[in-house]
């Protein structure tokens, strides 16, 4: 999605070319079909969700959101995101640095490993964690002896979320750093800068947009994750992340409350999209102003690779 969402919507062809355009009628038929499809498939679900959330009026809506357990689950989700996002950012920067600045054996394998969460069902991730950290699992006896809890507690939730979201930052940074080359960094080195200085003052500013996109994606996915945490959650009211709490409310015959809490996640999603759109427009303006030169790949190959970025199932 990265590369693709970042892509600005080019002005449609206003030129009318002889023979290269459909008749006005065909155009409108195609536009209508597309509009009906998007309306039924994307707009109606969103509208119905907000309708269900606000159906009982704003008072009931806010009452649903300010219940103790709902507030606790918001806090829980924020805790997970605050732990997961910086960890994955560090990982993404390290992995991108290693993969784009050096040649080594096993590089292809490492790249594939980074893509793994895109192809794997998050439920499998949960089962892996139970196989390792469950008291019947591999580390179980040791964990029990030392009275440590991983699955069915916060660490397990964090690990599950880390697993499903760790590629986002890396996947954003790798193409960007690849296209940028190492000349500025090498120049800085020859001028006597230390490795850290090069990273903080040369590399980081040049990858800041990609890093920001990666962070936004990671945050959105970390807060919305369902499948993996579904398996390792302890199901204690107040210790469930928001998506699980929605599931729980729904099962508790509190459908309207479930929709109210779900609308929070929908606002988060819409906010993410708007933030991204805003960053893109700033990014483009900066580019246009020549503040920096980026060789962002515009060919399809780059697109399809980055499109993979948000391919994690949940």
């Amino acid at each position, binding site marked *: 999605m990265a590369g693709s969402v970042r892509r600005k919507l080019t002005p449609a062809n206003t030129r009318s070319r002889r023979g290269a355009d459909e008749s006005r009628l065909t155009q409108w038929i195609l536009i209508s079909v597309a509009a009906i499809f998007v309306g039924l498939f994307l707009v109606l679900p969103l509208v119905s969700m907000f309708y269900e959330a606000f159906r009982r009026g704003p008072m009931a809506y806010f009452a649903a959101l300010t219940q103790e357990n709902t507030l606790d689950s918001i*806090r*829980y989700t*924020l*805790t*997970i*995101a*605050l*732990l997961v*996002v*910086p*960890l994955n*950012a*560090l990982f993404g920067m390290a992995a991108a640095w290693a993969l784009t600045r050096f040649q080594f054996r096993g590089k292809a394998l490492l790249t594939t490993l980074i893509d793994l969460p895109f192809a794997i069902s998050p439920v499998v991730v949960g089962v892996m964690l*139970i196989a390792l*950290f*469950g*008291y*019947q*699992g591999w580390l*179980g006896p040791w*964990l*029990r002896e030392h*009275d440590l*809890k*991983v*699955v*069915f*507690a*916060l660490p397990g939730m964090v690990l599950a979320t880390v697993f499903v979201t760790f590629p986002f930052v890396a996947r954003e940074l790798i193409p960007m750093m690849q296209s940028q080359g190492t000349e500025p960094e090498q120049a800085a080195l020859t001028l006597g800068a230390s490795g850290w200085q090069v990273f*903080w*003052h040369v590399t*980081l*500013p040049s990858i*800041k947009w990609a*890093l920001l996109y990666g962070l936004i994606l990671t945050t959105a996915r970390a807060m919305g994750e369902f499948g993996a945490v579904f398996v390792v959650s*302890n*199901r*204690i*009211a*107040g*210790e469930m992340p928001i998506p699980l709490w929605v599931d*729980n409310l*729904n*099962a*508790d*015959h*509190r*459908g*309207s409350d479930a929709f109210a809490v779900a609308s929070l996640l929908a606002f988060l999603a819409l906010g993410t999209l708007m933030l991204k759109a805003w960053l893109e427009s700033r990014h483009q303006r900066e580019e246009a102003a020549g503040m920096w030169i980026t060789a962002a790949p515009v060919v399809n190959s780059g697109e399809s690779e980055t499109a993979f970025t948000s391919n994690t199932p949940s």
Partner: protein
Amino acid sequence: MARIVRAWLFGSLLLGAALGISCTDPHRLSLLNVSFDPTREFFGEINAAFLKNWQATNATVLRIQQSHGGSAKQARAVIDGLDADVVTLALGHDIDRISGETRILPSDWQQRLPNHSTPYTSTVVFVVRKGNPKNIVNWPDLVRLGVEVITPNPKSSGGARWNYMAAYGWARRQPGGDDRTAREFVARMFQNVPVLDSGSRGATVTFLQRGIGDVLLTWESEAHQALSHAEGLSGEIVTPPESIVAEPPVAVIDRNARKHGVLPLAESYLRFLYTEEAQGIAARYYFRPQLEDAAEKAGVHFPPIVRFTLAEICGDWRTVHEAHFATDGWFDQIQSRRRP
């Protein structure tokens, strides 16, 4: 730029860690009750009552946490490390499993509290659509052609095992009934089950909110709960002439409670369930209390019903599990018949 990124990285990690630690505040006593699906509201009120009594005599702040899900799944979570101080599950077999696989509570746990550690019971009833359009009044109606029965998956839901055994038991108690006819009856009933939710709450949602099926098999307590909560949705309860005594037992998980320093507290919490006050609450949630007059005092009237126990029809849960719910047991065989 560099400074911002660094500050953000460490700041948010620290904040996350702080929040994470505050989630597990060590200065408060807390008690975790791992329970099954349809007891959320009931234990909500029990906990409030228990806390009121506790706070009257103790200065320490106590927090009672609840975790709900399918009974078998909750048992697995406890086995795999969920730190329950007490478990209040749908059937004894699940607690036996915890004790058998982990030894965190003794195997004679069921002898430690009165009535086989079962403070209240329930029974399996029918919820039908308003006006009972399909005229469902007794068990044989569930196997009629064109009647859709909603019941959760008995392999994952403890409540549903009681539903299953109620149908089985009814058939077995008929004149000429034996294990074979009872199995056939259950098999025919499951032919009419279009959806198998994993827990009883899911099944209730399927029936009431999604409008699927003609009759919902569920516990009496859950039936009343569901109908009182269903916003604008309606149905009515039909009590069959005969049904099973559903016994959801309770137990302290000794090792966990001792580790958390709440062993006496956990024991008094469970004993509280047998007091007049708690029995009254149970009655108001349509669990049938063990105290004779608790229902009357709470102003709750339970319709008359002939109730048979599991022991009367086929022994204990261990044998039932092996014969019906283990892999390739009778339920699996019924299920593979559904193959198109």
